[in-house]
Structure formats: C-alpha cells, structure tokens
C-alpha cells in the first residue's frame, strides 16, 4: 500500500519493478526497524515539557521594561522519553562514518576517536567561560599553546591564528592577512588568482575580502599551469590561492616555483589546507614558500563533522604575514607564563593585528579534541596516517581504473583521493545515478561533480581509517555499478530503492521553498 501522494508531485520516472519495496504495507508506515518519525510540531504540545522548573508566579515583580511577551511563541515540547525516542529514531535515518566508509573526496571523513569526545567534556574544558580571569584558565590556554606549537612545527610555519571557526573562515583570515600586509606597504593590488579546480569557498572568500577573482589555467595533467600563471603575475596581483594537494588528488609539483614567482612579483601565496591530511608528517608547507594556510581540524585532525559542523580553521602564517594576524591569540612568554593576547594588551604586544574575526578565542572544544588526536598519533603516527591515506586512495584508483575512466591515472600516483570521470558510462547514465546506486549497496557516495575540471567527476577519499577488507567490499560494489553504468542499465535511474527515501526532489524544494513548519490550514 502506497502512502497517498498529497503534494501532487508526479515522478517523471517509469514504474518500479513490482517485487520491490512497496508490497508490504503496514498501518504505522514503519517497516520493522525502519521507523518513520513525524515532526516535533506534529507530536509535541505547548504545555508539555521535559524539564522540571519552578512554576512562574504570575504576580512576580519584573524589570522587563514593559516588553513582556504576550503572544504564544508556538514552540512544541516533549517529555524526556519522547524526546529521546524522537531523536533516536531520526538518527537512524542517517548514514555516518560510524556505519561504514564515507568516501567524500575533499571532505576527509575519518574515524572520530571517542577519547577526544571524553576529554573535551571534562568540566575543566567544557564548563569554563571565555572571559574568566586568565589565572583561572591556565590549563585551557596551555591547550591552545600546545596545539599551536604542533601546528606550527608540522607545517614549518612561523605562527598560527587560532580563532577562525571553520575552513572558509580561515581562508578569509589568511586573505585578510595578505590584504593587511599589502596595505601596510601602501600597495592596493586588486586581483587574486584561483585555479578552476579550487573549492568554491576560495573564490567566494577572495570576493568577500574585496578582491577580483581570476582563473588560473590548468595543464592537461591536472595541475596549475606554471607558465600561464607566471605570465599573468604583475603589480595588480595580490596573491594566489592554491590547494595542495589539489582537488584532483594530485600534488602540485611546481609549488615552490609557483611561490617563488608570486613572491618575485610582490604577491603572497595562500594554500587551501583542506587536503593537508595527505602530507601531514611528510611535507611542511613552509618549505614550499606558503605564506598562509588554514588547517581544517575537522579533516586532518579528526574532530567530528557533526552533520555540518562545527569546524575549526586555524591559519598558519609565514613570518611576513604574522604581524597582521587577528586578535586574540594564545602566547607563551619567556618566563613560562601563558596568556590570551586580546585587546587589553594588543597595543604593546601585537599592534598590527588586522582586527578580530569572531567573539572570544576560537573553537576550544575542537582544540582539545585535535590535541588529543595529535598526541595519540605523535609525529611517527601522523606520518603513518598520511602514508595509509595515500596508500588506500591509490589502491582504490588502481582497482577501478579498468572499469572507470581515471583522467589523471596515467600520470602517476594520486595522493589521498582518487578521481574518476563519467567518460566510460553509456549514454543516459549519470554520475548521480552511480552515486545513488552506491546508497543501495550500503555506502555513502563519493563527492560528485567536483572538481569542475573533470566531466561528471567522482572524487573518492577513503582515508587511512579503512581496512583492506572494507575497501575491497566498497571496490566490489562500485565495480559492479560501474559495469552496469557502462552497459547502460536503465534501472540505475531508479536508485536508491532501499534507503529511507527514494530519490528526493530537489527541484521542487527550490521552486517553492518551504523552510519552516506551518500549521496545516484546517487546524487554523
């Protein structure tokens, strides 16, 4: 029994084979352990609560300046058992790294160690206020300083700005340092060069900081075209933003030469460090002439993605950019004392800061997790991390290149991610179909249609956290789907058939956006 289609939306796809799914109707709409769950607005009420609080006394004195709320807010409440059940049931409709391989290229979905969760919740870290007197939070400042020391040493850079809240915020921090350094020498350059293969955040960041963005062309082997780049450099170019390893999963062999050329022309080099996990412990970006690079703690250093954040994006800086780093930052003084340097002492200690990017001091909860991860691995373990990540990616690349087109496969090993195109697919089969078919196989799909430089791109990043057995199972599934795609199997267009939802209509969602709950008309 099918649920009635109240929306009036008509699927534009052919009927399903009869033997699939919709034969076992249930009264509840649930199917065994596959549990449907309504919205809190449909199950909660305004006078239910899961928290015991004193009843407000109606006549109590108030100092609210005549602004007391009179109207209902419209917030449903649930008791504690209902709340636990609601969110537990919803959680089961999610795929997650705890369930299996999550090979989103460029996103780096690695295992999130639970020790890190435990230490981040110690009251000495979780229950301290950012504006407590510094004498009462010396251990927290020590975490920041210790993590900063590791990040500086691992990258071979001069300093680190810890406050950026995520990768894109870190990009902004780095670009603003460049801008401040240029302004300090009276230089008003207007252009930032960004390769076409860059993350969308790069051009968006440069534009947000007031720069004009121009593309850097790529060579046929998927790397920055050094000659074309050098030809474009000049007195109007503030800098370049380069991802290394790049989003094709390749190391930019000419990175040092690029940096030298940019510096020669008076510009600065920003490196998008989203892929630092591929080289951590083996290559120091500082040795490649980088001036600024953000580090996604939620990628390289395993802090959980949490379904879309929080991230954390400390930015390591060269000596030339360090004077302009934003406030605040954590410092260790010669006498061993530790302190957060903020506006109170900035005039004496850090007078050229370009400003402040956020309230308070940064993502402390991520710092504790990242530090626990780094200490667990140590310098030797981090080297093994990048080695295994690159080994796993190359294993995927070479195990599938006979059934999928690997545009840069012939040019040598990849780094931490394997890139394929849709070139081998029969007409009518898309990358999206293949991704959705992987869902039916019980895997989260790879990154689709990115980078833009490859047609129908499929970017697979297994990370170092997958065993060979897990990879073999994933490879076998993707191989079988690729063979169907190459042969033009039309049923791929129906996938997924076995997930909590069939293919979701994104076009309808955007056409008439429904972004908040509204009571159904009959209830009003």
């Amino acid at each position, binding site marked *: 029994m099918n649920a009635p289609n109240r929306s009036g939306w008509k699927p534009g796809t052919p009927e399903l084979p009869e033997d699939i799914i919709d034969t076992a109707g249930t009264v509840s709409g649930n199917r065994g352990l596959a549990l449907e769950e309504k919205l809190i607005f449909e199950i909660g009420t305004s006078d239910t609560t899961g928290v015991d609080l004193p009843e407000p006394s109606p006549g109590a004195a108030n100092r609210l300046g005549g602004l007391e709320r009179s109207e209902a807010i419209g917030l449903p409440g649930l008791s504690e058992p209902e709340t636990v059940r609601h969110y537990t049931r919803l959680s089961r409709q999610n795929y997650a790294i705890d369930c299996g391989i999550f090979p989103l290229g460029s996103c780096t979905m690695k295992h999130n160690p639970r020790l890190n969760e435990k230490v981040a919740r110690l009251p000495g870290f979780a229950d301290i206020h950012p504006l407590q007197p510094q004498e009462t*939070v010396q251990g927290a400042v020590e975490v920041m300083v210790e993590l900063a020391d590791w990040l500086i040493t691992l990258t071979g850079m001069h300093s680190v700005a810890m406050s950026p809240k995520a990768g894109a915020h870190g990009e902004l921090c780095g670009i603003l340092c460049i801008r401040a350094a240029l302004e300090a020498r009276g230089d008003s350059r207007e252009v930032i060069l960004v390769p076409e293969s860059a993350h969308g955040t790069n051009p968006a960041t440069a534009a947000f900081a007031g720069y004009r963005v121009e593309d850097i062309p790529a060579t046929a082997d998927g790397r920055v075209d050094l000659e074309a780049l050098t030809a474009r450099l000049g007195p109007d170019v503030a800098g370049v933003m380069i991802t290394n390893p790049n989003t094709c999963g390749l190391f930019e062999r000419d990175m040092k030469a690029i940096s030298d050329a940019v510096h020669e022309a008076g510009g600065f080099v920003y490196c998008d460090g989203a892929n630092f996990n591929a080289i951590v412990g083996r290559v120091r970006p500082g040795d490649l002439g980088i001036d600024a690079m953000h580090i996604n703690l939620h990628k390289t250093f395993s802090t959980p993605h949490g379904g879309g954040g929080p991230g954390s994006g400390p930015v390591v800086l060269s000596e030339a950019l360090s004077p302009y780093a934003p406030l605040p930052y954590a410092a260790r003084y010669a006498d061993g004392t530790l302190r957060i340097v903020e506006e109170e002492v900035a005039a004496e200690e850090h007078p050229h800061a370009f400003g402040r990017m956020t309230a308070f001091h940064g993502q402390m909860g991520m710092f504790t997790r990242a530090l626990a991860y780094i200490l667990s691995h140590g310098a030797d373990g981090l080297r093994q991390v990048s080695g295994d990540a690159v080994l796993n990616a190359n294993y995927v690349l070479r195990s599938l290149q006979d059934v999928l087109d690997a545009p840069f496969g012939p040019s040598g090993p990849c780094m931490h991610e394997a890139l394929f195109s849709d070139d081998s697919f029969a007409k009518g089969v898309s990358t999206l179909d293949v991704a959705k078919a992987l869902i039916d196989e019980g895997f989260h799909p790879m990154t689709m249609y990115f980078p833009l430089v490859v047609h129908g791109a499929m970017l697979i990043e297994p990370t170092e956290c997958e065993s060979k057995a897990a990879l073999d199972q994933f490879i076998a599934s993707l191989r079988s789907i690729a063979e169907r795609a190459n042969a033009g199997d039309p049923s791929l267009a129906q996938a997924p058939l076995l997930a909590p*939802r069939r293919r979701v209509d994104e076009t309808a969602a955007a056409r008439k956006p429904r972004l908040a709950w509204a009571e159904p008309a009959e209830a009003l």
Partner: protein
Amino acid sequence: MRYLPLTDTDRTAMLGVIGAPSVDALFSDVPEAARLGGPIEGLASHASELAVERHMTRLAAKNLSAGEAPFFLGAGAYRHHIPASVDHLIQRGEFLTAYTPYQPEIAQGTLQTLFEFQSQVARLLGCDVANASMYDGSTASWEAVVMARRITKRGRVLIADGLHPHYVSTITTMARFTRDAIQYAAPRLEAGCGEEALIAAIDGETSCVVVQYPDILGRLPDLAAIAEAAHANGALLVAVVTEPVALGAIRSPGELGADIVVGEGQSLGVGLQFGGPYLGLFATREKFVRQMPGRLCGETVDAAGKRSFVLTLSTREQHIRREKATSNICTNSGLCALAFTIHLTLLGEKGLRALAAENHRLACLAADKLAAIPGVELVNRSFFNEFAVRIEGDARQIVRDLAAKGVLAGVGLGRLYPDQPELAGGLLVAVTETTTEDDINALVAGLQELLA
C-alpha cells in the same frame, strides 16, 4: 596504532596491486627537497589512550570550572543547565559522525532536525525563516550587515552602543575590507540605551541599524521605535540576541519590527566551552530569503511521494556561485544546532517560559542585594538575567581578587573596553537558573569585604 586498521601484510598486498615498491614511492610527485625522510624532529611519538587522557586531565585540572564556584559571568556566553539527554543524543554516532547532508536519501535524520531547528528559531526570533546556522553570534552579525548592504545597496552602518564589543570588532574588521562606513561609540554606564541619538543618526544612506537586545549591559532598548525610524528611511533593523532564553520572557525582535534577527544560540544546549564552538542564529523575512547566507533546509517529497527534507536554494552558496555567492560559509555549526533544538524541544513553550521566569526572578534578587551594598550602584532600569553595577576603582581587579577567593564574580568592563577608562568601574553580572541564593550571598559578602 589504534586508529589505523591496515596491517603490514595488507600494505604489502596493496602495494602489489598498485605496482609501487613502497608507500614512500607514492609520494614521488613531491620534490625530493621538500620530502622529509622520517618523523619530524622535536615532536613526541604516539601515545596510549591512557597516557593522552592523563595529560589532558592534568591540563583540565588547572582550570577553575564554573561548577566549582559561585559563577556570574555572561557578556555573550551564559551558563545554563543542559539536560543529560541532550549530550547523550548528540553523541549518537549517526549524528556526530555524519557530514553535511549532501545525500538526502540517507541523511533525513540530520535534515529533519535542521528543519525543526529552523522552525523553532524562526518562531523564537519572530521571523518567517531561519537558516541552518552560522558559526556564532558575532559572525552572524557581520553576515547580516553584508546582507543588508546587498538588499539596500547602501554602505552606511549604524551600530548601537550596546552591541557586544567583540561583535563590533568583528563587523568593523570586515568593514575595513568591504568599505562599509561604520558609526559606533562605546556605551556609557547609564540606564538609557540612547535610542534617540541613534534614531537621529539614521539617514537616506543608512543600510542598517544594528541593535543588541538585551544589550551588552543587559538593558532592553526600544526596538520598535528604532525599527520605525529605520524603515522610514529605507534602512533595515538588524537585531542581535546573545541570550535567547530572554525570548521566553520578552517580545521577539521580529515582532518589534526587526528585518534581520541574528543571535548566539549557545545558551541552549551548547555550554560555555571557553568560547566555542558556539551557534550562530540567523533569521529574516520571507522576502529576503534569497539574500540569506548559509545552508537552508526545505521540505519536499521523494520519488514515492513521501515527505522528505533537503538542502535547498543552494544557488546562493559558494559551491555553486563561487565568487558571486552570498557568503563563503560552508561548514557551519550543525551539531550545536542539534543540541539547541533538542534542548528547546525538551523545554517546549512551557519550559522556556518557566526557565526565563526563573532567570529573571534570581537576577532581580541579585540586583537588589548587590544594590544594597554601600559603594555598589545598579546601572539598569530594565534587564532580563544580566545587569551592570558601578563600583569604585577597576572592576577587573575586583574580579581577580574575588576569583582568588573562589568566586567568579562577573565580567569587568575594562576587559571588554580597555580603551574606555570611564567604564572601568562597570561590572557585568549574569544570573541564571544555575545560580543559587547561596551563590548570590557569596558574591554579596565578597564584594562587601573588598569594598569595605
């Protein structure tokens, strides 16, 4: 190493498939000069779980946590009791270890909670729509300023004196590069919020007026009057809420005429965490939705006609629009948004109102007791759960002295306004449901002793 599943046998077999002699050989694209031959010198080697836990516990023990002392700090970060089920639920691996929900068929858990979050936030702030979160209240504030410029095509920003100074710095830092003209002056230690001067400064070039509610001193500005004046001049009112629990007691900014309402959601579900990660709230009118920054979750159906949720209107975003995007934000505060929505679901309307009432009751009690101390003067006429008092001398020193006696007394305004000596005597005191009457008495006794 406990997080790495590959064995040496696996590695050898895999290298055989790849056709490479060693793992190091896979790094052949890295120029020899940049390749390190072994682990970086001067750094520690790997450590056991026990050893790392011991180290981190030792560091944590050096801090005086809020639960160990009578605690009165606020100024944009508030200590509330978080029900145990919140932290349990956000630690479910299906939420904790998922990515941004790019594949909606296997991410309905995250997506439905985001839809619930957006709906709760929109209602709480009094707006039509809310996004799926920003980094925090301060970055949400500058995103609001940028959005107001997109809508009004004007570049003059008026900031009320009661905006959190870190938020002011965040906005002015960005304005340096976007070339918006910012008008702002630090507050004075007085009960009035300066609405008249603010209104007088609004003109035909003003893109937006940014007003915090309750403000940094805990005062409650007249948003309705400011909204009216802004609208009369074609400008927008951006309201900033750093204590969302207040909205269980006072009217919402949207109801009072704000066009964009941003906030810090840390109070509900997230915890103090030394300043981050926190949770940026961002809500506005339906007509401005395509100018919003950040992720949006919308309702739709799947191919079988079942209600489903999906990220939508992504043509505003950086991964599609690149340099023409409304913001560069990508990762936001997903898990903090989940904590917020679970906590608010547990409270419900009834619980939120009771929570707000209890905060206000205790704050009134504390304000009266403190104002009775010779040498302490209450600044506020109106407040919710935080207020300012004026004392002789530098309140920072008082705070340090009381911390040494085991009382975390509040925030000395000199910490926030180091270049405003006339504010040095201001002490911000926040009181929540976690504050006991004994705590208040301890603060009173401590202040009495120091001021005697």
